[in-house]
């Protein structure tokens, strides 16, 4: 790499990591100041773990993310299997388009549109508050599932279709053939898709903001409410923890992806050898 390239990359990465570095450093500051570092301490972390509202929000976020991940992984995997093999051209195009919508649409539109529908349906049944955990879960599954499909679909397309047929000829039911043949092959895709869904759900603010009632507060909504007033470094401590958790998840999914790719390469090489 040329020196000028190195300098430019350095500047860009400084720009990208400056705010994160500031957060990290000042979460360990003894004083409340966000510009002068006085002394290293875990004070704000201790305070964070004594804040029952934030801990409650953390619990809510995790429950929601786990539920959304499980549902969207199952729904998305089944959908990918269907899209991959469905014969009707029209159906396939329709499903691909509909999968793109939540990813292309601005979050605010997705959030508002779901909220309007929930409010309308709630009114129809005469419910006092129509936004609750269930509406949020529906919203999260809706925006997470397309990412699962996009991770699983390429894995299915790489597969040899005759393997499934062979399993069926040997007496497997379609479901059994799927469980024994396809599932092990596409598992890495499902796992990376699930991790993506989990992090997206953890991180989402805009859609949650519009589809959550007053009773169910997730962490990003809690952060939003905290930043309406002046913020204590407690929020920085929270940000630091979230940062390391998501970083770990990202690294795990990278490792899974790498191993999967390596295995694929190995198999191709073996195949070439046997073809000879």
């Amino acid at each position: 790499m040329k020196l000028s390239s190195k300098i430019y990359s350095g500047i860009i990465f400084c720009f990208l990591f400056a705010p994160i570095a500031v957060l990290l450093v000042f979460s360990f500051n003894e004083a409340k100041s966000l510009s002068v570092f006085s002394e290293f301490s875990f004070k704000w972390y201790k305070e964070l773990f004594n804040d029952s509202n934030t801990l409650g929000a953390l619990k809510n976020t995790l429950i929601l993310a786990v539920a959304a991940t499980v549902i969207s992984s199952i729904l998305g995997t089944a959908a990918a299997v269907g899209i991959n093999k469905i014969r009707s051209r029209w159906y396939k195009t329709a499903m691909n388009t509909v999968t793109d919508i939540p990813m292309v649409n601005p979050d605010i539109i997705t959030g508002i549109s779901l909220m309007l529908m929930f409010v309308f349906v709630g009114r129809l049944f005469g419910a006092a508050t129509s936004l609750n955990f269930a509406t949020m879960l529906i919203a999260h599954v809706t925006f997470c599932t397309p990412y699962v499909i996009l991770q699983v679909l390429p894995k299915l397309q790489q597969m040899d279709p005759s393997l499934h047929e062979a399993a069926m000829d040997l007496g497997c039911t379609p479901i059994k053939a799927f469980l024994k043949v396809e599932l092990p092959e596409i598992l890495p895709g499902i796992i990376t898709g699930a991790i993506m869904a989990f992090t997206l759900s953890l991180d989402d603010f805009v859609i949650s903001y519009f589809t959550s009632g007053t009773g169910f507060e997730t962490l990003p909504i809690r952060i939003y409410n905290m930043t309406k007033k002046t913020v204590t470094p407690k929020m920085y401590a929270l940000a630091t923890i979230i940062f390391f958790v998501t970083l770990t998840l990202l690294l795990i999914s990278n490792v899974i992806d790498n191993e999967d790719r390596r295995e694929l390469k190995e198999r191709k090489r073996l195949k070439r050898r046997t073809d000879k």
Partner: protein
Amino acid sequence: MKNSSALKTHNSYRAALAPYSIWSVLFVIVPLIFIAFYAFTDNNFAFTTDNITRFFTATSNILNDDGTTKEVRTYVLIFLRSLKLAAISTVVCLILAYPIAYIMSRAKPKTQKTMVTLIMIPMWMNFLIRTYAWMTILQDSGIINTILGNLFGLEPFHVIGTETAVILGMVYDYFPYMVLPIYSILAKMDGKLIEAAKDLGCGSFSVLRRVIFPLSMPGVISGITMVLIPSISTFYISQKLGNGKFFLIGDAIESQYIANNLHFAAAIAFILMIILLVMMALLKYLTTRFVYGGDSR
């Protein structure tokens, strides 16, 4: 025998796709119809175009610099401001992102991987926190002004509450979305093309203009889309970094939602959706026209 098992398989694929099909109709398509429905109805769900008319005609007074007031069309002004700030942010993102994407694509495979991860890491930090962090950095009592003040005795720069701060926030938040698509196209590009162009007498700039840039156009276009759409519709960034002075279209939707004016909020969202669709169609038309030389595939 073979046929019946193939049929069975095909039916089970249909069954596998059914739940997601139903889900998509119920929670993707129908909600979008609800936006239009709310936009064109009043509180009693009777048809009206008042919400749309209100968007284009509502006025308010703003204070000029010389103390006089001026009557402006509130929401039209907000919309144009959103478009302007989003366009500037997108251009700045493109100018900053292209060189780094190019540098990444020419680096060693291992370095490439590390750099991609580094670009992605800030994306996994909640955008509220990222934005808030910039606010504390840029404040009059923030870290930059404190350092400048202590070292050089400078008066604090007032960055918060300017359009520059809002643009900075947008560029920062959406920068990775510009880098990654451009990088993925450039990384796949055949290096021999550059050598060939050089052999045929192209200078470095000429290679960039005539070979690299045109070939990377699909990445540039998807980068533009991925930055433009969220920055037009964002809220929060302008509230925090613009000090609430630069109301954007997202803020307008949010404030109507908070005020429980759902029909007007839907009207703004509806207009935003239409404008975005037109913009996307235009972008697609321009790409097929000028990038693929009119061969619309």
